[in-house]
């Protein structure tokens, strides 16, 4: 039994879907694009592919090496694929949750959140440095359990393809109770929101049940404000890729104690400046349109 690479197969569908989304938005459907933002997102996606070509082989080799120590010998047959798919989505939940709560992993994942837009191109805004933050370790328990490496990678690819299609404002809420089970465009819009109540919520990949089980689910109520706490002021892909790593290096150099160093490297994002998601939520209050006293533009 052999497995194709779902992401590579889906690239033409990605391109067609983005084109259709652009036309739909231009025709009046909800959503927004900005051509330079789209360019940055696509450049990040391309760089992610190049990084996978450069380092993916060694990661897969390490998974095969680990497979010799697996606890069980799970057969490479079709009926195991659904089990592997659910198990892989479970590990994705924990990877994703960690990627938001531990700065070392956030330094790679922040790239995906660095657009102030939420459209299909945002889905492709992916990290170039996942290998550096060792994101693949979250899949290793599946190898240890005995799932075949090829099957794990296939399921991970399917997961990513599914997630591409939920990065859109074109779709409202899904019918037939699907919002209870699946991660949907609505649930994932919340995940990309910087509204205080939306920060660090809805980590699920395909299934939202993990968030419901582990207390990280928030429904979409008010319109999300997309992006990150300190939105980037550049479209430069190199800066997008490296900015949080540079921030980590700067804070590590400035650390005045071992505890400060650990916080800079592995603390929650924003811990060094006191702007964690928890502290932002605590400081938030219901938004009231401000009273402004000075007229402008300047007279």
């Amino acid at each position: 039994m052999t497995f194709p690479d779902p992401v590579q197969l889906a690239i033409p569908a990605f391109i067609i879907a983005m084109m259709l989304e652009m036309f739909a938005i231009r025709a009046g459907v909800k959503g927004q694009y900005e051509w330079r933002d789209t360019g940055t997102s696509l450049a990040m996606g391309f760089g992610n592919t190049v990084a996978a070509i450069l380092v993916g082989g060694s990661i897969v080799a390490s998974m095969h090496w680990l497979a010799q120590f697996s606890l069980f010998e799970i057969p490479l047959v079709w009926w195991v694929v659904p089990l592997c798919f659910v198990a892989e989505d479970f590990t994705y939940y924990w990877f994703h949750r960690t990627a938001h709560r531990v700065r070392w992993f956030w330094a790679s994942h922040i790239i995906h959140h660095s657009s102030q837009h939420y459209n299909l191109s945002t889905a492709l805004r992916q990290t170039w440095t996942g290998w550096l933050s060792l994101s693949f370790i979250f899949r290793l328990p599946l190898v240890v359990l005995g799932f075949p490496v090829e099957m794990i990678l296939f399921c991970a690819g399917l997961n990513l393809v599914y997630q591409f299609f939920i990065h859109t404002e074109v779709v409202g809420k899904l019918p037939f109770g699907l919002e209870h089970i699946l991660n949907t465009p609505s649930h994932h819009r919340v995940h990309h929101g910087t509204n205080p109540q939306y920060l660090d919520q809805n980590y699920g990949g395909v299934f939202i049940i993990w968030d419901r089980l582990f207390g990280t689910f928030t429904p979409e109520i008010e319109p999300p404000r997309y992006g990150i706490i300190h939105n980037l002021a550049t479209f430069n892909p190199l800066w997008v890729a490296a900015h949080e790593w540079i921030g980590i290096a700067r804070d590590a150099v400035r650390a005045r104690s071992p505890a400060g160093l650990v916080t800079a490297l592995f603390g929650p994002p924003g811990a060094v400046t006191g702007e964690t998601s928890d502290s932002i939520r605590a400081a938030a209050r219901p938004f009231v349109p401000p009273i402004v006293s000075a007229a402008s533009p300047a007279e």
Partner: protein
Amino acid sequence: MIWTSLLGIVTLIGLAWALGFRAKARLVSAETAAAEASSAIPGFDAYEAAVSDDTRAALVAARDGRVALVRSFGDRFVVRLLRNAESRLEGETLHLRLLEPGFPPAALSLGHQAARWAARL
């Protein structure tokens, strides 16, 4: 596959441009700038704002004395609290350089308000 991807990227960027997704954000009023600052910074209670003549940037003051810079970025805005920012007044133009790496310097033409805003930074 790489060449196909590159062709797809160029096509999509070109399509986005051709379909007119190239709006530039403008701060049409002090209220707009204040609302941007208040929604971007939790707990920021805006009460005064001054928008640059080019409508691309603004300064917003909160009741607690903090001052935020709001500047356009594509069709969106970015907001930063001004902490330890270098400021320089040239006529009626206020030049700001934040200590944050990668954040471009800003120049706000604020008319007769420039000196007053410079003094509070």
